[in-house]
């Protein structure tokens, strides 16, 4: 099962999901709106997150590992180091080509990395402290159309099952993929392998289609007539609203503060 939610008895876990979602979005927005050189703001925002993480009693190690997920994407921003204008910091000569790393470029690169990482941490915090059902209910209250609630609910319910089926398919393919000793092309040609994979995917999809028909039969047998599935809603207490407003104001303050500083 793809368990991202970590069960804990913390203030954050108990907090209304709507508050958490709203705050996460505001947080990420504020972080992304900061000017590149807002070092104090980055520190303060990080402090906020770190405090929440401690409050949530989540395992720090898992969080840090998960936050490395988007690291490869940083490659996309590397050209920035070389293409921004003067002042230049480092000049490299490789064969006949000259690379110059400029200060603005470096700052922008670091800024993107920090902003990306902070946004990621905020999202991870949300996921690890909120159950999927609560997230879905909160999204519904925030305006998510009913049909999406149904689709997402069913998708989540059957995701683990289908992933298991897929793993079985991969396992059975692998156990039949022993390469012969004298083969020139181990494991068959690329074309053939892609075809096998494609058929596996087709198999998976076909089974899913069959399953959807059976689930439909089960739903209809219990009186389903097309109305999307219901979810339980949770009211937001006055306290929680206050906390949310407080947090938002805090973020905006930091943001305004950074703009003024520069």
């Amino acid at each position, binding site marked *: *099962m793809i368990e991202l939610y970590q069960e804990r008895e913390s203030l954050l876990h108990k907090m209304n999901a709507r508050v958490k979602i709203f705050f996460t979005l505001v947080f990420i927005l504020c972080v992304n709106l900061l000017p590149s050189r807002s070092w104090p703001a980055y520190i303060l925002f990080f402090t906020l997150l770190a405090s929440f993480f401690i409050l949530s009693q989540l395992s720090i190690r898992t969080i840090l590992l998960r936050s490395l997920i988007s690291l490869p994407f940083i490659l996309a921003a590397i050209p920035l180091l070389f293409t921004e204008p003067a002042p230049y910091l480092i000049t490299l000569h490789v064969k006949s080509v000259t690379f110059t790393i400029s200060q603005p470029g470096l700052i922008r690169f670091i800024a993107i990395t920090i902003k990306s990482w902070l946004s990621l941490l905020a999202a991870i915090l949300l996921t690890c402290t909120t159950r*999927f*059902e609560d997230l*879905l209910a909160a999204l519904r209250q925030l305006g998510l159309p009913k049909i999406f609630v149904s689709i997402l*609910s*069913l998708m*989540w*319910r*059957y995701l*683990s*099952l289908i992933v298991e089926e897929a793993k079985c398919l991969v396992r059975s393919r692998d156990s039949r993929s022993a390469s012969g000793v004298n083969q020139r092309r181990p494991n068959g040609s690329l074309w053939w392998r892609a075809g096998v994979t494609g058929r596996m995917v087709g198999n998976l999809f076909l089974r899913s289609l069959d*399953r959807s028909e*059976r*689930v439909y*039969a*089960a*739903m*209809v*047998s*219990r*009186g*389903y*007539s097309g*109305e999307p*599935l*219901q979810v339980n809603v949770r009211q937001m207490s006055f306290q929680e609203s206050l906390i949310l407003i407080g947090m938002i104001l805090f973020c905006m303050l930091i943001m305004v503060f950074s703009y003024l500083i520069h």
Partner: protein
Amino acid sequence: MIDIQDLTFNYPDGRCALEQINMQIKPGEKVALIGPNGAGKSTLLLHFNGILQGKGRVKINDLEISKKNLPSIRSLIGMVFQNPDDQLFSLTVAEDVAFGPACQGVEKELIEEKIQNALHAVQLEGYEERNPYHLSGGEKKRASIATVLSMSPEYLVLDEPTSGLDPRSRRELIALLRSLPQTLILATHDLAMVEELADRVIVLKNGRIVADGKKENILSDEKLLFENDLL
């Protein structure tokens, strides 16, 4: 009473699935529908609540299968499918058990009560917030029965209820089914269960009813069972 007359059904590709089925099931009966694979047992069951509709007449408590009557019929017939994962499609057990009553239009407070009663009947009290994915095979089976019990049906129709269950879960399931008051219709290979639960047995082969009688008579007729690939 379930009243089926001259029911004939063909698959989309033209093959004959059911031919001239005639049967009547009175309230309170415990009927076992047995037959080899491909005999049409599951197909027949799907006609009880109108998921499949063939030629001929199917009446449940004097209601004919028609668009108008389907909601009522589906409240009368509790259909339990073979694979519980197909029947438990919500994120928690409570949501699944509440689904039927919610579709029936039952008020919220009453639904809570129905959930409790259904879970109690299948001995899954306390399982409300559990994720169906994490349940064991036997628990899933019982939960799927609860999802149907909460609709207060008069007839319980089960397709291969003991398939895939380990011996202990199987025993628990049989005990559970014995404790339920509803009219029971079971499609199964499990002759031992038939011996324990049913009082009437219908034998199906190639889409036709080849035998219909008291359990004792049918199950002791070895020649009949052998001819129909049941032994």
